[in-house]
């Protein structure tokens, strides 16, 4: 009993890690722009695909092969870094091409949200169009090792995922609290009007935010692909919506909130699936969400802004 509980606990931590990493992107962008970036789930998918092509390339599965074979661990390292960089470019490109012009024209923010939805559709279906509907299986970068601790099966992938997520948390908190750009991000979410007047370059901050968010989604994409090595164009859609929900449960715009919300959603989903028929998973998870938000409308860490009249 305890064993299966602990096993589920670990699974939930891993599952929640993915949600947390993606939820961060939603939260960061929302904090700065008040924009629900609905393309973000698909950025995660793009990350996984970029990782796929990089990894297969580095492993020499194309016509071009390196004269020497790279050790898998090194391939893993290079893939992660390059994927994060490339996906960040995609995220920033979307910002520049689709969102920024709209913002400049003073469009209602909901129009930017709709544009984000459209960008998501383009990413999904563009992928389907150019790469075809066949699923791709991700190469095994981390040789699967399963440790058995007290009767629990702990794979090294799980450990990497969980530790990476925790590291990201610490790193992000540091960036946001210690660096100038991070502080500018917080300043914007505190007072949108004053920040540009104070000489803080708004566009730089926005680009930085998209870089951060997209590269974290890419990290989630790589790790997800390693843990569940089947890629398909729509893999980001549902995960994306759910990560968004996680961000909101935590209190959107809050880094801690995104993490906690992500893990919470992971736990709810894994444990519901463990103890109830799996068809009830969404129903129960979303009912919990509905009840939770009815009681605490601004999420765990969200503070209701006092309305001044």
């Amino acid at each position, binding site marked *: 009993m305890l064993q299966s509980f602990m096993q589920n606990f670990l699974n939930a931590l891993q599952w929640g890690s993915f949600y947390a990493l993606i939820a961060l992107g939603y939260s960061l962008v929302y904090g700065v722009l008040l924009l629900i970036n609905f393309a973000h789930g698909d950025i995660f998918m793009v990350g996984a695909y970029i990782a796929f092509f990089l990894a297969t390339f580095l492993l020499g599965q194309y016509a071009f092969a390196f004269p020497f074979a790279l050790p898998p661990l090194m391939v893993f390292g290079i893939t992660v870094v390059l994927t994060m960089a490339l996906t960040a470019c995609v995220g920033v490109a979307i910002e520049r091409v689709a969102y920024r012009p709209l913002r400049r024209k003073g469009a209602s923010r*909901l129009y930017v949200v709709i544009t984000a939805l459209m960008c998501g559709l*383009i990413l999904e279906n563009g992928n389907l169009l150019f790469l075809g509907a066949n699923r791709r299986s991700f190469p095994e970068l981390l040789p699967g090792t399963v440790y058995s601790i007290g009767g629990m099966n702990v794979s090294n992938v799980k450990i990497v995922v969980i530790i990476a997520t925790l590291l990201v948390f610490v790193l992000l908190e540091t960036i946001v609290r210690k660096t100038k750009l991070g502080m500018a991000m917080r300043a914007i979410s505190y007072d949108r009007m004053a920040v540009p007047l104070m000489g803080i370059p708004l566009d730089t901050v926005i680009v930085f935010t998209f870089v951060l968010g997209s590269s974290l989604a890419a990290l989630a994409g790589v790790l997800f692909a390693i843990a569940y090595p089947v890629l398909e164009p729509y893999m980001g859609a549902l995960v994306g919506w759910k990560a968004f*929900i996680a961000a909101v449960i935590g209190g959107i715009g809050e880094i801690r909130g995104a993490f906690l919300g992500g893990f919470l959603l992971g736990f709810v989903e894994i444990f519901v699936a463990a103890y109830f028929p799996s*068809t*009830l998973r*969404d129903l129960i998870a979303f009912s919990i*969400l*509905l009840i939770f*938000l009815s009681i605490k*409308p601004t999420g765990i860490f969200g503070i209701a802004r006092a309305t001044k009249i």
Partner: protein
Amino acid sequence: MGRFTSLILYGFFCVVVVAAAQGRWVNPYILQIAMFVGINVILSASLNLVNGYMGEFSVGHAGFMAVGAYVTSVLNVWLFSTTKVFGPAVLDPSTAVYLFPATLLLGGIGAALAGLLVAIPSFRTRGDYLAIITLAVNYIVKSSIENMQVIGGARGFMGMSGIVNAMHEAVNLPWILIWVLVCVGFTVWVIHRFVNSTYGKGIVAIRDDEIAAEIMSVNTPRMKMIAFMLSSGLAGVAGGLFAHILGYINPGTFTIMKSTEVLVMVYLGGMGSLSGSVLSAVSLTLVLEFFRPLQVAKWVVVPLLLILLMLFRPEGIMGHREFTDIFPRLRRLFSPKGKEE
């Protein structure tokens, strides 16, 4: 000409369409597209009530549509046809033609009650948090249906074509088309009158400044409840019709994708513009149909077009305006005293 101009014109239009269908002057494919256009007009006009006029951000409209679709379909199949699950028909199938509006209405009422799931949290929650609640309701409705094996679960529910045939046999007319036309007219008419009355403008006041609305004597919870229930109820009616056009429904139809489609129609038309909603529902449905031969590429081309359109008209096709604002002459035609009532 006068206050009944629009009614007369619409009636004439309906007669022509029905005659075209009855006389088989147009092929069934085009007829079906026309009916989907109608469904989308109802959906986008009703969502505009909440998202445009009231300024909330509801992203789960398909959920209410699903409730209406299932309530109406299940009632009809239970009442008028013999199935394994529900047993023999309760009423004679030939009465379906008379009772169809009643079951359609019940579907709408069911959906309006589901709308309470969103309306009640909306008293305390606004904006993006409420958006999540609507999203959650959409998922809850969908997975509740998937878990109800009696009505087919994830496999879907069928038998509505039998009802449609029974109606057709009783009185030889294209009934579903007629009801689509009636419901489209009804929806536009109800919403138009609601938002043009001082009573209905209360929801616009909520959008502009909810605190001022509440302090200036607008009963904001009640107005929100009315707007949400009216909107979801009309979506339910659209769902009921939709089910009978296809003859078969399954929960997979009523996902966030469908909600997104309606959402796009609302914002494309312009927030708080009823004629914009109608216009964009018609044009988007037709454009999607037009690009159907492109298959997958359709879902790249259409979003690209939409993004471009947004860049050129960042407030939607119509913005806040109506047709009558752009062509003031129309107003003289449509209302008795030369000014909008």
